[in-house]
């Protein structure tokens, strides 16, 4: 069982009764994981923040519909995934009229490496990107990731292994950047 499950259920029940402080506490507990999910599913990090904002608002206003308060995180993450998907669809439509490319600002070498790594992460398959974001950005353990995405711990491990192998391959091709 997730160590946060106990307080989560109590806080979510209080928040559903309109206790804003309880909702803030929930965000303090799970905000990082929520944002990690948004980053894993939204087209860009900027979109992810907007998705996070929009979803947190929605979660707050619809908390009454959450029948199992202990499932707050899973429920919120499904809201985030839907919002991110919608945003992705809109982004595809917008992409029909591409904006002119601006020259890239000059960067420190370390920043270039960071960007290369994050771009490589963005190019991963969604399932792989999701576990990378949850592990590195969300700071979640295998067990917590497995509960969140509904897969077993070995599956989480396998996806991380696949993701890392893919990243190694991609970053190897950009060895000059690294």
């Amino acid at each position, binding site marked *: 069982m997730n160590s946060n499950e106990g307080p989560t259920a109590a806080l979510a029940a209080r928040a559903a*009764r309109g206790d804003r402080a309880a909702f803030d506490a929930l965000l303090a507990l799970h*905000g990082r994981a929520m944002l990690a999910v948004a980053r894993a599913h939204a087209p860009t990090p900027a979109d992810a923040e907007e998705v996070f904002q929009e979803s947190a608002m929605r979660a707050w206003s*619809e908390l009454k519909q959450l029948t199992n308060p202990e499932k707050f995180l899973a429920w919120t993450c499904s809201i985030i995934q839907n919002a991110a998907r919608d945003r992705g*669809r809109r982004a595809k439509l917008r992409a029909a009229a591409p904006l002119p490319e601006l020259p890239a600002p000059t960067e420190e070498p370390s920043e270039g490496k960071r960007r290369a790594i994050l771009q490589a*992460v963005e190019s991963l398959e969604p399932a792989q990107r999701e576990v990378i974001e949850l592990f590195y*950005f969300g700071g979640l353990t*295998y067990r917590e990731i497995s509960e969140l995405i509904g897969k077993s711990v*070995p*599956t989480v491990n396998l996806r991380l292994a696949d993701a*890392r192998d893919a990243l190694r391959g991609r970053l190897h091709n950009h060895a000059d950047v690294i």
Partner: protein
Amino acid sequence: MNRETIQYYLDGEMDAAERAAFEAVIARDPALRAEVDRYRSLDADLRTAYAPAGGEAERAIANLNIHENIRPFKRDPRKVVIGLGALAAVFVAGVSIGLLWAPAIRETPPETGKILKTKAPDIVNIGMLTIATGPCSFNFGKGEARAAVAGDFIQKGAELAVPAGARAACVSTDGSELYFDRDSSAVWDDARSLILTSGRVFARIAGGRPFTIRAGGAEMLAQPGSVQIENHGGAAEFMVYSGGAVIDGLGKPFMLKPGGRALAAKGSVMPDESGDDLLFSRAWALEIDAAAGGRDAAIVSDLGAMLDRLGQSKMPSDIYSKAFNEAAAACKTAVARFFTSDDAILHAELRRGAARLLAEIADEGLAPVLSRGTADSEFEIRKTCVGGLKSIASKTKGFDPSKYIDRKALEDDGGPKKVFK
């Protein structure tokens, strides 16, 4: 030592005893140490890359601007009663006003003749495109085809094209659902009639009169349930998962029950009893279900759990051995068929899963365990695995088996020897 174990170690997922044991192995094995260092280096790079993003979560939470006036939604039963009362009052008032104005309305009767001559709009929406992944297009027969996007209405005569690699889901006005992939093209006759000119459709038929799908010069009259039709350049396969269907072509129509399959070409129809593709077709149906929201989530979950159990059996623990033996006895044959069927291996994810599973069964001590859990000898199990990998290697474009197997060893018949890398 596999990469998953290295990850358990680097990601802090081992307990103290496991860590100590693993570190002792690393100390004795320079090649393993080098591999661990490679993963450690990537891990460090990723942590560095994500470090600046670390503060984003706190900032995003701090920036949250949830208006104080927004409160968790709660339906107040008293308000519902008041609302219904208000509706009733509006209705009464509307009727009263209507009666008051009725004489005036009667004084200016509608021009009936004109109304009758007005042509009704001939655009009738018979369905809607709900999901489109990839560059799908619609042709309504009035010029160029245009991009099809989710939310588009489907009209009589519309032709939907779903290129290879794309997928589309549609719902008819009767509630029937249609899922297309594999370079499909279909034309709607009406809400319950479709011509599949190429590709594949999986249909979940809603209640009502039979749903007609034509392909290969024959037609399927499907009852409520699930069916699948593939059209390969004029030769069609009709399959029934649930419900039933009448297949009608040249000759006598016949009935297909769940699990039944028929082939049609140029109108000639014959039942096919082999059922070889049924397992794969079922897997595809599950995949479609998962993409559409996982209504058959229980079956998907069972399949996942089965494979997870196969994965967990590699863990250095006895906890899983009993469950694994049970799972192996129950599903080994099914898993092997599922993973090695011709069509399944075309799917990249399954291909990887197949290769990995087969390699693990043969090489990581699973064959003896499977042998104990089933009636097959270890030799037979290894042979099945080699056969599966051969099949994957020979029938899949761009698939490189060298990641999993030793090509030279693959040439033999796969006896109880080490053929997997």
